[in-house]
Structure formats: C-alpha cells, structure tokens
C-alpha cells in the first residue's frame, strides 16, 4: 500500500453536515496520492477527478469501469432537480496492497455515504474490485461537491495514516484474532 496525500490539511470536512463552513481547499488538500482520478470536466470544479455528468442533451459520461453514470436525464438521484440542471461527478481509484485493505476502507468510508434527505446532497459511492477502491461523488452543486471531495480525501488520508500505524500490528496477529 502506498501512502496517500501529504497530511490532512486543507478545507473543512463534513460537506454533508449542516452548518459546515465552506472553506475552499488550502495547501495539502490535493489528493497527492497514487490514486487515479477521472478527467476534469469543463466548467466544473477545478479539482482532480471532476467531470460533468450530462444533462438531457449530452452523451452519458463513463464511470471507472466504462459503465454509464447514473442520472442521465439530469435528475439528481438524491432528488434535487433544477431546470436544465447538470450533475457533477468526481471519481478516484485507490490501489491498496491487498483486497482486505481495500474492503476495510470501503466499509469504513461507506458508513457516512448515505445522503441527507435534502436538495443538493452529495451522493457517495464506494466499490471495491480486487485491491482497488473506487470512489465516486455526485452532486448537483459544485460547491457541495468541492467540500465533499475535500472531506473524502481528508478521511482517506487519515485512514492511510491509521493503517500505517496499526496495520503491521494487525497483520502480525495470529489468524484466530485472539481476544480477551
């Protein structure tokens, strides 16, 4: 497993929580790691991996595996809809040393993935294939997406740090995982 981004600095996390201040990313907020991110779209957020999902007139953009993304008719899956709304997506692929690690990170991050029942909520999708973790964030609002990207990358960075500290100990334990 390769180390992820350079620390946990940058903008505030918890894009989906009410009342979180919208501070744009600062130093260290880029992904910076080995993950492969989707292409940036025109007119969308300038962060890595942002792409613009099509509205009613454009062709469907592709996800990490080439599959069409959701919401091809411009309707946000979380229920928000504006006249001629466009959906924005960010996706990143993170390789891990083993499928176990990828799955562990997916389980932990996906706990907070359920969108809040309000317009503009960001959809988060975490999937694993082998040792690869795929993260996809979808939003109708670029500011929400920007915050969510920053939050997600900060959590990833923190997870990497935790696993660097404790994973070697975890792997050294006997397979039965003895407990008191």
């Amino acid at each position, binding site marked *: 497993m390769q180390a992820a981004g350079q620390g*946990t600095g940058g903008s505030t996390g918890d894009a*989906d929580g009410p009342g*979180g201040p919208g501070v744009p990313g600062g130093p260290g907020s880029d992904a910076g790691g080995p993950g492969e991110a989707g292409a940036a779209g025109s007119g969308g957020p300038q962060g890595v991996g942002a792409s613009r999902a099509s509205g009613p007139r454009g062709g469907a953009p592709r996800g990490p595996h080439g599959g069409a993304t959701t919401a091809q008719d411009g309707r946000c899956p979380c229920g928000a809809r504006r006249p001629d709304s466009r959906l924005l997506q960010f996706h990143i692929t993170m390789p891990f040393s083993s499928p176990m690690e990828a799955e562990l990170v997916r389980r932990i991050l996906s*706990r907070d993935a359920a969108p809040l029942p309000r317009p503009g909520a960001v959809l988060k999708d975490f999937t694993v294939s082998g040792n690869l973790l795929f993260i996809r964030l979808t939003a109708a609002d670029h500011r929400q997406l920007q915050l969510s990207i920053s939050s997600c990358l900060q959590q990833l960075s923190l997870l990497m740090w935790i696993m660097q500290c404790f994973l070697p100990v975890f792997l050294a334990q006997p397979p039965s995982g*003895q*407990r008191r």
Partner: protein
Amino acid sequence: MARCWRTRGGLTSRLLAQVGFLPGDTARHHRAVILDLLQEALTESGLTSQDIDCIAYTKGPGMGAPLVSVAVVARTVAQLWNKPLVGVNHCIGHIEMGRLITGATSPTVLYVSGGNTQVIAYSEHRYRIFGETIDIAVGNCLDRFARVLKVSNDPSPGYNIEQMAKRGKKLVELPYTVKGMDVSFSGILSFIEDVAHRMLATGECTPEDLCFSLQETVFAMLVEITERAMAHCGSQEALIVGGVGCNVRLQEMMATMCQERGARLFATDERFCIDNGAMIAQAGWEMFRAGHRTPLGDSGVTQRYRTDEVEVTWRD
C-alpha cells in the same frame, strides 16, 4: 485510564481567539493529534491493543466535522483490532464521569457548557430532560459577551468573565427569562450587548459590574430550574457537570440552594468538568458492560443527539 491531552502549539487558544471553535479547524486539529494521542495513551498505560475491551467514541451531539473525524478513527481501529464499538452520547459522558468522580448516586444533574444547558434526572432507564435552554447555551452566552467586552480568550473567555465578575460591585438589572422549566439566554445577551456600550460609555458601570450582573442573573435562572426539578423528583442530590460547572460562583449559588433544601451538591474540578475523552471512555465502559454494541452500520455521528434518546440499561 491514561490521561493524555494534546494541544499543538497553543492551538486551543488560537482557535478561541478567532471566532470560537470552527468545525473545520477543530476537525483538522483532531486529525492531526489523534493518532499520537492514541499511541501515547497506550504507552502511558502500558497496554496493547489486545488489552482493550472496546472502542468508545462520541456519537454526538456536537459539531459534525470533528465528530466524523474521530468516528472514522474509532471505526478503523475497531476493525483492525477486532474490538466492539460503542457510540456514546456526549452529555451522558459528562453525567457518568460526574457520578464516578463524585460518588453521587442519583442526582439531579445541571449540565452547563458552551454547547448545552440541560437539567437532567434519571428515571426508568432514561436520563430525562426536565428543562433546558430554548436557544443558546449559558456558556455560549458568557463567551459571546466576553467578545463584546474584548476580554481575552486565554485561558478561556468564561474563566476570564468569572475573574472579572469577582471584582464587580454593582448589579445591573437584566432580563430574567425562565419559562417554566426552560431558560432563554439569547434575549439577555442581546440586551446586555446593547446596554454595555451605552453604560460603559457613560461610566454608569464597569465591565466588571456587567460580568457580575450577567453571572448573577443567568446562574440564578439555572439554580431556579434545578431546584424545581429537584422538588419534582424529591431529589436530595445535585450534580453540576460541563465546562461552566467549573465556575465557582455557580457552585456557590447551587450550594446555597442545596443547603436550604437539605440536599447535597456534587461538582468536579476542571479536569473532568470540561470536555474530555475519559468521560466518553467511562460512559462507554458502562454501556459495554451492560451489553451495548454499536454495529458498524450504525456507527455514524449525530449532531443533534438528545440525552434522553439513550436507553440507560446500566442503571436500575
């Protein structure tokens, strides 16, 4: 329990010196120090991960970003160490730590901090909220008034207000807003912000007088609703928890009320009044022993987590 705390380069004071605790800055601080803190706690206590029985974390209430940051760590460590997870209500953490430290058996609890103001009593496996603020917390009121007076945030605005109040001599009449079992502070704050400028400019009073007057007014309100709850419950014990519970004047006023009722007052010092991890561990321990477990799927955080939402199965 190992006692570790971490502020990095006076970060706590710097945070308060701005506009209070900002969620993003607080979350960033937590992420920066939490793993070192965890390692330090294990080292200082001489324990390893195999000695740990469960991982307790704050499920809420509180600011979202910091809560999520710590919840992520708790989940990860629980997964890596294969330990059960227990999500703890912050308010109940205060109560259980207060009961442990003071030995109070079944007190009426006055929980007062920058974020919460509640009068709580235990009944039938719930910590029932008998009264609370209907707007801002009492600590928030004091802190925001400190900004009006441009009082230093070092070590904390509430502490400095308290020290200034000791030098106050004149009681300025302020709105007294007790509404049944509840209290309201936002109107008092608006009022005193307005009169402060006028009265200080004309020399009618000093900043110390205003600090004294504000404390006397808001603390009297808290004493009233606590006493009412004690009368309702027939309680002979009162326990003050939360950061504002460190205030000596509040403790004096509560002690006077308890003495008049033949009741006993319990309070902790600043090590345990103010938010701390040990109180979460203590409540988590009680919950764990009673069989509470938080599945990974339920291990999110709740910014608005009511004290009475938790089933208190560890008490009769």
